[in-house]
Structures are given as C-alpha cells and as structure tokens.
C-alpha cells in the first residue's frame, strides 16, 4: 500500500522525466531548423553537430555542471555533487541535491542537462557554415560550465539573483539569452560567411536550402517547449496541483501570437510573408514566454508573442545591418527576444501568480511599481556582462591559438565534404553522369566484362567508319 508521499514522488518524477524527454527532442528541432536555414553543402554537418554537442554537454554536465548549478554551495556556485554517485542520484530531496524536493537527483540531472543542451544548440546557430569541428568539442565543454554558473545564480535556492527575486520561470535569460550571447561572440570572432557581404558592404541573401526542414524543426521546438516551460515546475504541485497546465496554455498562446506577429511584420516591413520569418516569430515568442509562462495572464501572453514576432523580423535585419552574419537569426530570436521576455515579467507578472510561485512580485501594470522590472533588468545586465565576456574571451583565445574558422576552400566546397569527407546529399554532389540512384560507374561496379553484344561489330559497320 503506497504512501501518499510516494505517490507524489511518483507523479512528480513521471512529469519531470516526460518533460525532460520532450526538451531533449528539441535537439532534433534545432538540427532541422538550422539545417533547413543553411545550405545543402553543409546540411549533414549542421544537423550532425547537434548530436555531437549534446553528447559533449551530457558528459560535462554530469561530471561538473550539475554540481556547479544545483549542488549545495554558496550564492555564486554549487560546490558539491560532482560526478554524482548512484545513491545521490536515486535518493529524493537529499543533499547535495535537496533543491529537488519531490524527485530523485537523477530526474534533476536529466531535466537540467537537456536545458544546458538547448542553450548550447543556440550558440552554434550563429556560427553555422564556417566553424571548425573541434571547436564544438572545446567550446561546447566550456560553455556548459559558463551556463551552469549562471543557472545557479538565477534558479538555485542559494543563488544570489534568485534571492533578489528575479523571475525567469524556464530560462529566457538562463537558457536563451545566454546561448545568444555566446552566439554573438562567436559570430563576431568568426566573421561573415564568404559572399555574405558584397564589396559594397551590402548583405547578400544566402537562402536556406530546405524550408520544410525548418518547419519541421519549428514544430518540434514548439512541441518540445511544452516540456520546457510546464516541466519547470519540477513537481506536480508547484504553484498548485496541475498548475503546469496553465503554464502550457500561456506557452501555446504566446507561440501562436508569435507566428502571427512574425508573418504580419514580414508582410508589412518586408512586403512578403516570408516563411522563415514566421518560423522565427514562433521561436522568438516561445523564447520570450519562457520566463513569463508561469507569471502572466493569457492576454499578456498574446502581447508578449506579438511583440516577439516583431522583434524577430526586425532583429534579424538589424543584426545583418550592423554586419554580423547570423545564418539562422539566433541573436535576434534568442537574444533580443530573451531580454524582452525577461523584462516582460517586470511588466505583466500577476501578483497572485508571483505569490503562488513565491518568487518576486507583481509587474508594473498591476502594481505600478518598477521594482520587479528593476530586478529583471539587473539580471539581464549581469548575465549579459558575464556570459558575453566569458564566451568572447575563450573563443578569442581559441582563435589566437589554433584558429576557429575553416579555410576558404573548405568553406566554399562545403563542410560536409571538407570536414567529413562526404556530402550530406551525396547523390546531388558526386558528379556521376549516370545520375541519382545509378552506380553503374567504374569505381563502384568494376568494368562490365564485355563492352559489345554485337557478334563482330565490324561486319555491321558502315565503310565510312572503318575507312
């Protein structure tokens, strides 16, 4: 006969594990969004590196990151729980992972590592189509640690920004804004792709090769975000039993508004309902509602989403204007919109909900007070300074020491064949006149035994040929 506390643990663990798994699947979303918005010649590399970096992140986060972020410690970092033991992972609410009160430490690891993986996936979007492969290993590991520190500040109960009452429900700042800061540093240090900017400095469009991929990626992300935000209750009763359903609702409404905001802005500003911009609008809205999903009313979710759609479109253009080449728009979509979402809490947080979640206070429109907005702005400023400078310095050193960008020929040829020896779509590239799907050529078949089936050709041949 199970005890009610056991059942509570069971339900909470189901919830956290299931949502963690949804978030993990966002890697497929990023892989296809990024591959879709870049060129065929890099498609395999772009998609494949998401598997690689999530792997790097999973190991590093298990060894060090998780302890740094959620192990017992001080206001700045966690100091326990590195290379966690079996017992630490299977016990519930025990030190060093007592931060997770109703789920085993393992569930905590799983939920938090997939978040780190998302932040890391964002980084590479802006660095796509020109970074060296090994940089993914090295910076992937380093960024995982940078990320862990910040998440400790804002999410862990000892974190100094948490103590100030900063509201970042699921990580507009921790996950998305941070990822975008590193992405920005990378894009600046790498410089634009060959051909992105003409001699006159005008930006050239480099169309993504597969919009259906980008759509699939976006829907997968939307899908995964239902794990991202609602799962951040880390239990079934935080905010009240079943409260996470409310979080899912604001998330969905904001995403929808983002799609509309994006496509409408594109139609007005660009005079075309650009599909990639609509998709960016969805993601920007999801990024913004990430911080606010637990705190705001549905109407505010609509506002947040619409504004995000506008930010996505204009942001992409501005970033390009100032000469930064961000192939998939990570800086605008995760950075600008991440800031917007974080500040939006300061504007729209419903006092009742801030109370239920026991984090910070109501927003400006309800309380007339700028307090919460100030706290949010502080968080944005501090994280911006820390993560950008840390990422920039590390990448700058890597660049100085070994260089982080592939050679010109490699970039022109494409990373698939130059870095991995084979294109992502070999049958479009290997110049085989036999064409797609036929392998009837020497290096695969060996010469056919006989080249003629005519008895003895000469007989039939016209004098003109034999002379």
């Amino acid at each position: 006969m199970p005890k009610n506390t056991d059942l509570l643990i069971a339900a909470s663990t189901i919830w956290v594990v299931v949502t963690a798994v949804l978030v993990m699947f966002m890697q497929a979303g990023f892989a296809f969004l990024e591959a879709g918005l870049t060129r065929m010649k890099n498609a395999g590399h772009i998609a494949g590196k998401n598997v690689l970096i999530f792997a790097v992140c999973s190991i590093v986060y298990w060894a060090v990151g998780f302890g740094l972020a959620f192990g017992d410690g001080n206001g700045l970092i966690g100091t326990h729980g590195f290379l966690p033991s079996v017992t630490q992972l299977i016990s519930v609410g025990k030190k060093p992972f007592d931060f997770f009160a109703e789920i085993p430490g393992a569930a905590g690891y799983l939920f938090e590592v997939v978040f780190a993986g998302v932040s890391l996936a964002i980084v590479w979007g802006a660095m796509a189509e020109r970074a060296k492969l090994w940089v993914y290993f090295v910076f992937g590991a380093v960024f995982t640690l940078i990320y862990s520190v910040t998440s400790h500040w804002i999410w862990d109960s000892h974190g100094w920004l948490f103590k100030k009452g900063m509201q970042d429900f699921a990580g507009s700042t921790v996950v998305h804004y941070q990822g975008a800061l590193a992405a920005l540093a990378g894009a600046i240090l790498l410089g634009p792709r060959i051909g992105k900017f003409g001699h006159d400095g005008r930006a050239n469009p480099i169309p993504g090769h597969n919009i259906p991929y980008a759509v699939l990626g976006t829907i997968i992300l939307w899908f995964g975000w239902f794990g991202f935000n609602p799962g951040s209750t880390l239990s079934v009763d935080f905010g009240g039993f079943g409260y996470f359903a409310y979080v899912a609702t604001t998330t969905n409404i904001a995403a929808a508004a983002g799609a509309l905001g994006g496509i409408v802005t594109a139609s007005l500003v660009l005079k075309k309902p650009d599909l990639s911009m609509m998709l960016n609008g969805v993601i920007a809205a999801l990024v913004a509602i990430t911080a606010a999903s637990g705190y705001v009313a549905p109407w505010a979710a609509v506002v947040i989403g619409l504004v995000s759609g506008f930010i996505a479109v204009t942001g992409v253009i501005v970033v390009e204007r100032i000469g930064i080449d961000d192939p998939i728009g990570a800086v605008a979509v995760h950075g600008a919109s991440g800031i917007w979402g974080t500040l939006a809490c300061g504007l729209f947080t419903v006092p009742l909900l801030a109370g239920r979640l026991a984090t910070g206070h109501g927003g400006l429109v309800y309380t007339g007070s700028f307090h919460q907005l100030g706290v949010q702005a502080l968080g944005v400023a501090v994280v911006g300074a820390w993560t950008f400078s840390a990422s920039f310095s590390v990448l700058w050193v890597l660049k100085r020491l070994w260089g982080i960008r592939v050679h010109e020929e490699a970039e022109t040829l494409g990373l698939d064949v130059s870095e991995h020896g084979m294109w992502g779509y070999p049958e479009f590239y290997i110049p085989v006149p036999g064409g797609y799907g036929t392998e009837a050529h020497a290096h695969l078949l060996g010469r056919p035994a006989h080249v003629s089936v005519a008895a003895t050709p000469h007989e039939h041949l016209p004098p003109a040929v034999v002379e």
Partner: protein
Amino acid sequence: MVKVEAVVIRERIETVIDAVEEATGHVGVTVVEAVGHGRQRGITHEYRGRVFESRFLPKALLTFLVRDEIAAAVQHAISDAARSGHESGDGLCWRSEVENVVHNRTGLRLEEVELRA
C-alpha cells in the same frame, strides 16, 4: 545530315517536339536542361527581407538530327511552336552540318535506319 539545335522555354519543349513531328514526320530528339541569359531580365527573389535577382532563366536545349531536305521545315516548325507570346525569352534555333551519323544499336547510318523504319 543536319543538326538543328534550339533553345526554348521549358514549358514549350513538348509543344515544339510535337510541332516538328506534325510538320515533317521527324521523330527523334535529345533534350538538355539549360539556363540562359540574354536580352531578357532574370527572376527576382526575396528572402528574409533581401531582394535579389538571378540573371539566368530556365531554358531547354533541343538537338534534332534530321535529313537535309527537311531541315528548313524543322526550323520553321520549331521557332513557330517556341513562340510563347511573352515579351522575351523564347530563344533561338539554328542549324549546322554533321557527318557520318551512326545509329549505335545497329551500327548503320541513321539515314538508312530511318528509311527502313
């Protein structure tokens, strides 16, 4: 024999081939996808707010090997059928002499094969 080559818009490929057959009874053509650049302007595209133009337009390059006597009629049929009514882009049609056209399957000259058929 004579080699008649023509550059036409892709939509008209089959119309042209049919017109040649109707006019002269000639069957046999080899078609290659091409892109062309001429007096006509290219297509305009838009992506993430950038407008740009591709100077090339899709065309097809048709090659007909025909008996000398029908060459003129074939050219006539082609340029007639290739005419789309657009202001531009309908392409060209020309001819040149070719020697010793061999039919690979039989090793005979194409003329002979066509006679037999």
